[in-house]
């Protein structure tokens, strides 16, 4: 009798795409946003900071496709450059929040006992905090800026990762797979990060996609109430705030950047939805 390794069938990109149209749509939009962010200087028709008071608050036209803002700056160009702070802030959040939470969860789940109880109690406490308000207060007290905003969001949003990683690690601790690894002498960090982490990673990635959808909104919200990146940097939330006073007359000034925020957040949500369906058939 021959032993066949049980491994998930590898799917081609095309097969994956046809299995989950929503993940494909989300990934495509995100790729587009990344492309726009990378090539902003070539794509933007105007300098996003160039003011021209003669054409302030101009309606969309052939010269300015999406019109101009209160300083006569081209809105389309500012939208294009606005992809950059948004992507920067959410990537910063992701690289702090996901590893921090996952590490805490793996350690708690693997060692158990008092370590687990202390770490999970701590996680529960942070989880019960109002994360939006705390993040905002943190930025307001420490001073506005992109880095502070990202740090504040990351420090309040890691608990779900810890909970998830802990549960998965605990169920795995008693498995033959772990016993096998320990038997050949793998222990400590190498066991945790070489053998436990890869098993926890897929669900973590889905959660990151889901969380980043919310982060796009919160980051924009920070900009909207004046706590985000400093002006005149083009940032979508700040642009909506700029358009607020003229919403009844020149509505496009606030409407277009808000729409961009919606699309970016929607892309992450679609991607997360699709990924979840792909990785967990129960949600299908």
């Amino acid at each position, binding site marked *: 009798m021959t032993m066949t390794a049980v491994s998930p069938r590898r799917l081609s990109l095309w097969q994956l795409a046809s299995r989950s149209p929503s993940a494909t749509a989300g990934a495509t939009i995100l790729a587009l946003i990344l492309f726009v962010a990378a090539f902003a200087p070539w794509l933007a028709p105007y300098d996003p900071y160039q003011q021209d008071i003669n054409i302030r608050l101009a309606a969309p036209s052939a010269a300015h496709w999406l019109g101009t803002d209160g300083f006569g700056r081209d809105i389309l160009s500012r939208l294009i450059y606005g992809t950059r702070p948004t992507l920067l802030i959410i990537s910063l959040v992701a690289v702090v929040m996901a590893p921090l939470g996952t590490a805490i969860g793996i350690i708690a789940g693997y060692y158990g006992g008092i370590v687990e109880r202390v770490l999970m*109690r701590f996680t*529960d*406490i*942070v989880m*019960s*905090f*109002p994360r*939006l*308000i*705390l993040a*905002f*207060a*943190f*930025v*307001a*007290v*420490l*001073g506005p800026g992109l880095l502070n905003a990202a740090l504040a969001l990351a420090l309040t949003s890691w608990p779900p990762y810890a909970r998830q990683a802990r549960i998965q690690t605990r169920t795995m601790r008693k498995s033959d797979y772990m016993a096998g690894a320990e038997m050949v002498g793998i222990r400590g960090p190498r066991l945790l990060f070489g053998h436990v982490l890869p098993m926890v990673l897929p669900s973590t990635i889905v959660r990151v996609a889901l969380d980043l*959808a*919310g982060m796009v*909104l919160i980051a*924009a*919200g920070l900009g*909207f*109430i*004046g*706590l985000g990146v400093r002006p005149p940097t083009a940032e979508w*939330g700040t642009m*909506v705030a700029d*358009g*607020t006073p003229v*919403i*009844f007359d020149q*509505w496009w000034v*606030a*409407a277009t950047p*808000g*729409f961009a*925020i*919606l699309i970016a*957040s*929607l892309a992450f*949500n*679609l991607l997360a*939805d699709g990924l979840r369906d792909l990785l967990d058939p129960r949600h299908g």
Partner: protein
Amino acid sequence: MLGFINWIASLLIGLLALLLVTFAFTHIASIDPVIRIVGDKASQATYDAKRAELGLDKPLPQQFLVYAGQVLRGDLGTSWSTGQPVASDLVRVFPATFELATVAIIIGGTLGVGLGLLAGLWPGGWRDSLVRVISLLGYSVPIFWLGLLSLLLFYARLHWFGGPGRQDVAFEFTTERRTGMVLIDTWLSGDMGAFRDAISHIALPALVLAFYSLAGISRLTRTAVLEELGKEYVVTARAKGAGQFRIIFRHVLPNIRASVITVVALSYAVLLEGAVFTETVFAWPGIGRYLTISMFAADVPAILGGTLVIGVCFIILNTLTDLIVGGLDPRLKP
């Protein structure tokens, strides 16, 4: 009983932790409270004297105890911008937020559960797709932008609703303030014109906030309904001839009430947070708007006071949900 003690313990630990966080915030603040008072030209001696007067030269644990004592006595400090005690400012603005969030959660909870049922009972159909699109949009839309656009469309263009603020100027100074909740105050005043005006003002921000909570509620209800309908007792009930109506109201709803209550209660807590944006857009004089104004002015005592109040509500709602759900569903008893 043990569950209750456990509950009290986790509530207290949560509140203590929150207090530690706000205390830490006062110490990482980029504005030195001493320099703010004495100015940056003061001599070192003046600076030190003021610092000692504020108690900032004491060891940190002692400072924390003093701070905790003040908060427990209801003293949240004095606002740097209004010069008023933060606590009395918050008491003044809190009812507005409470009213808005409550109206919003009633709308959002009803619609959300209804939509979730609709999607869960006919999975895969057009109703399911519709609910999925609504909840996807609810998760993705920036709420301040939705608020602005709805003001533009329904107030400025269609004149369906009242504009920003809680009342028209005509009624603003005639209504006697009793509860601080404008719907109740105008109702008590007996002036039906004022009451209708209050409704037309609260409707739009409440609907926007409700939409914000709807996504999570409908999605979770759908999942719970689907899961419950797949169970064997439902099949048995059907075999015994129970109709769809009876199955939903007699069997499914009672069994999923714990998860529905949890998600509605958590959404209510999140609405208190979401109020920050909605209130700013709709000029709604609640705690959210108070916070954004203080944040913009870097008014540290006001920011921390507001954060503390919202945080306490949040933590109480969170832990209270655990308690209620534990009582409703014997399977979840510890």
